């Protein structure tokens, strides 16, 4: 055996040992979530809609899922439990007052170096002290303009019950086990929700819409 062969044998062996010493960790703990889409139902016609705010809480012990942050919500994902075959959620829908509150806010336009990148900054409090860094070339102040803010007057609850079957599976060696679900039935109260339609009963990690909620 030549020295070259021995050297290469040992070199490759050491590289192999080094390559073995890697610890893999769970990068993406996969979870199957129910994807709910919100739709408006009017005169038999279904159209897209958004909600100003919604709070969802599982009945039992869990925390509130979505808080009442005022934003346009088109869909939401909720987790099903691992140990039982049915669960209920309370959906609290924000009711928006049609009388909008109109605030007046000053608008400041800041232009740096006469470039097209115009930075528009709005300040809701008229006497806010401006801290602009770097100092702009031109600073325009405009008269206050009215801005409409939606006003959430109260919430109305609907209770939604999900019945499903579960299949346990190993996500990966690093992340362990989870469940795939199949929706069997959905029932609900009718305070705000008009109806719910299961369009895809397979609850998996692929984020396809499972249920249409019609208002």
């Amino acid at each position, binding site marked *: 055996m030549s020295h070259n*062969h021995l050297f290469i044998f040992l*070199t490759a*062996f050491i590289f*192999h040992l080094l390559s073995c010493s890697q610890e893999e960790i769970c990068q993406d703990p996969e979870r199957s979530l129910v994807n709910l889409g919100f739709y408006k139902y009017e005169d038999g016609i279904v159209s897209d809609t958004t909600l100003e705010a919604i709070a969802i809480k599982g009945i039992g012990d869990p925390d509130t899922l979505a808080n009442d942050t005022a934003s346009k919500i088109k869909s939401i994902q909720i987790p099903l439990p691992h140990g039982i075959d049915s*669960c209920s959620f309370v959906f609290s829908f924000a009711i928006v007052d049609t009388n909008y509150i109109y605030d007046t806010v000053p608008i400041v336009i800041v232009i740096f170096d006469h470039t097209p990148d115009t930075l528009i900054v709005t300040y809701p409090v008229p006497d806010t002290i401006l801290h602009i860094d770097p100092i702009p070339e031109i600073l325009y102040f405009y008269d206050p303009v009215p801005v409409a803010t939606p006003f959430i007057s109260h919430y109305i609850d609907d209770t939604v019950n999900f019945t499903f079957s579960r299949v346990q599976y190993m996500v990966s060696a690093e992340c362990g*086990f989870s469940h795939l679900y199949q929706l069997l039935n959905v029932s609900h109260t009718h305070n705000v929700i008009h109806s719910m339609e299961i369009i895809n009963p397979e609850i998996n990690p692929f984020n396809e819409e499972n249920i249409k909620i019609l208002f």
Partner: protein
Amino acid sequence: MRRISKYCFSLLLCFLSVVPTYSQEEQDIEKPRVRGLRFGVDLSRFTLYYFEPERTAYEFSVDFETVRNLYPVVEFGLQDIQMEKPIYTYQSEGYYFRFGIDYNFQKKQSIDQYEMVFAGFRYSFSKLSHSADNILIIDDYWGDYYAPAVPENTSYAHWFEITSGIRAELFRNFFIGWSFRVRILLAQTKDHVMEPYYIPGFGRGNKRAGIGFNYSIYYRIPLIKTIPKVRQEN
């Protein structure tokens, strides 16, 4: 990717080192060529204890030079896994066979030299049984859940390998060498509950292809001494 680059670097070093040996002239044609079953043990499997303590594996090989530079090969291996994680415990045991042929490209050497720079292929299959228990599913919303155990299940896999490497005679009938392998999975038992963590002889169960290395020592039983035809004619 880092791992692959290390392998490729090692492979490159290998071939750079052995190329000059092609220039050896055929000499001493009067000597016989010894043939016999050559048994090998893969040394790299013994390092698993330090780097993958949950996995125990052994691999053995037998080859035989049927005609000059052509070596049919049978490889056999065993694997046992006892993996304890905070969220589950996994057990697996299995075995595998590989069948194939190695061809030695290093032709310009004397009749009693057996160093090899070879390439070959393998058809391989494995069988394993595995199970899992103490399964904990972490759920930050509804609360953690202790799931039922996954009972013992049997799984099969078939794959194809292309291999290349070197083999050198350390002492008379004692060899040492390594081989680089590229593996492509042909078929595997579908198991929607739990894929094998590690397919014996192949690699991680969630991969469709893989690479591997073997570092082996061999002993050849000198069974047959073949006299070169040139000498017989004289």
